[in-house]
């Protein structure tokens, strides 16, 4: 849903994986013909699918915005504020370095020296923070400032009431998302 990568939630992921493992263990101890085994197995499959899907989307976003995310995390001082988990960070680093070395090997080495430089900082893809997202308000927040696109100066101030749903630009509600006052739909 989000145009960029949100903070990693390794605790939730680990917790769910533990539960899957536990349920699989329980199943092994049950008899095969037991009806409950089938139901539990479906449950396990569903949980595993949701988890897989979540992690896959994260990986996709990491691959797309790898350089930008690594840069952002490098500038964050507090380790608990990073967007990437340690494993994701090493995945991103390896991905970026494999891409760069591939480019170097195949074309850049044969180019004239003056062109050889590859400035990844300039060339990397940045997430579109202006894209619109659906959100639902959990805590009433008065006075959210919506900037006007056309620059006419028609900035609006909106009061977000609890339980209401909106379609807004990601940039406007970025901080509220972090704090949990609004959630994605």
């Amino acid at each position, binding site marked *: 849903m989000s145009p960029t990568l949100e903070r990693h939630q390794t605790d939730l992921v680990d917790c769910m994986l533990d539960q899957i493992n536990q349920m699989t263990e329980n199943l092994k101890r049950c008899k095969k013909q037991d009806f409950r085994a089938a139901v539990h197995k479906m449950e396990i499959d569903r949980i595993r*699918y949701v988890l897989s899907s979540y992690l896959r989307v994260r990986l996709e976003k990491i691959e797309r915005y790898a350089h930008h995310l690594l840069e952002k995390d490098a500038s964050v001082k507090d380790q608990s504020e990073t967007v990437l988990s340690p494993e994701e960070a090493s995945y991103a680093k390896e991905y970026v370095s494999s891409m760069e070395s591939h480019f170097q090997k195949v074309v850049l080495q044969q180019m004239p020296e003056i062109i050889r430089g590859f400035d990844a900082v300039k060339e990397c893809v940045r997430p579109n923070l202006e894209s619109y997202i659906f959100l639902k308000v959990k805590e009433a927040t008065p006075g959210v400032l919506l900037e006007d696109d056309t620059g006419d100066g028609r900035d609006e101030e909106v009061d977000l009431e609890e339980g209401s749903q909106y379609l807004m630009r990601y940039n406007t509600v970025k901080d509220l998302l972090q704090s949990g006052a609004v959630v994605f739909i």
Partner: protein
Amino acid sequence: MLGEKALELIKEMERSKDGKLPAYNDNCVRLVLEEMTALFQQNQDDVNATVAGEAQYYPGIRLRHASLERNKRCLLAYLYNRLERIRDLRWDFGNILPPEIRENLCDPEIEWFARYSKNLATYSRSLGEGSGLDLTHDIKPPKNIYVEVRCLKDYGEFEVEEGDVVVLQKNTTHYLPMSSCQHLIRLGVLQQVD
């Protein structure tokens, strides 16, 4: 015309978007690089002349530099696009590529594929404190535990999760648990019967 060959590469990628990854066009890439070297050489001569005091070559230098940059951008876009397609192949086919696809990749691309595979495997293993979760399974939400499949090719013997061994001969149908045959369905050996 400057930059034509580079545009050809881009057009090739654009046209093959829906189909198979085309063979690595080594010839075209080499031609583009040769063009760039030639342009650069001409530019060097003109720059030397300009430094010596003749200002008339300046627009020519700018033009050649711009076309050098454009060629570089096209080449990098071509490579990047191919890498993206190869990455999708990893998610579709798993670790081992079928030979008809492998012959379309050049050596550095095969190396990149191996490196990417390894990276993905390391990451998958690191999830969940050592037990790992293979992310290439469960691409679609599970509808049923068991699924009816028809065999499209002769695969031989296949062991299902629960321990039963099934012989996969062409045109036979089987009723198997979804998790065991997901991979084979993606490879094309089995086909789901609706």
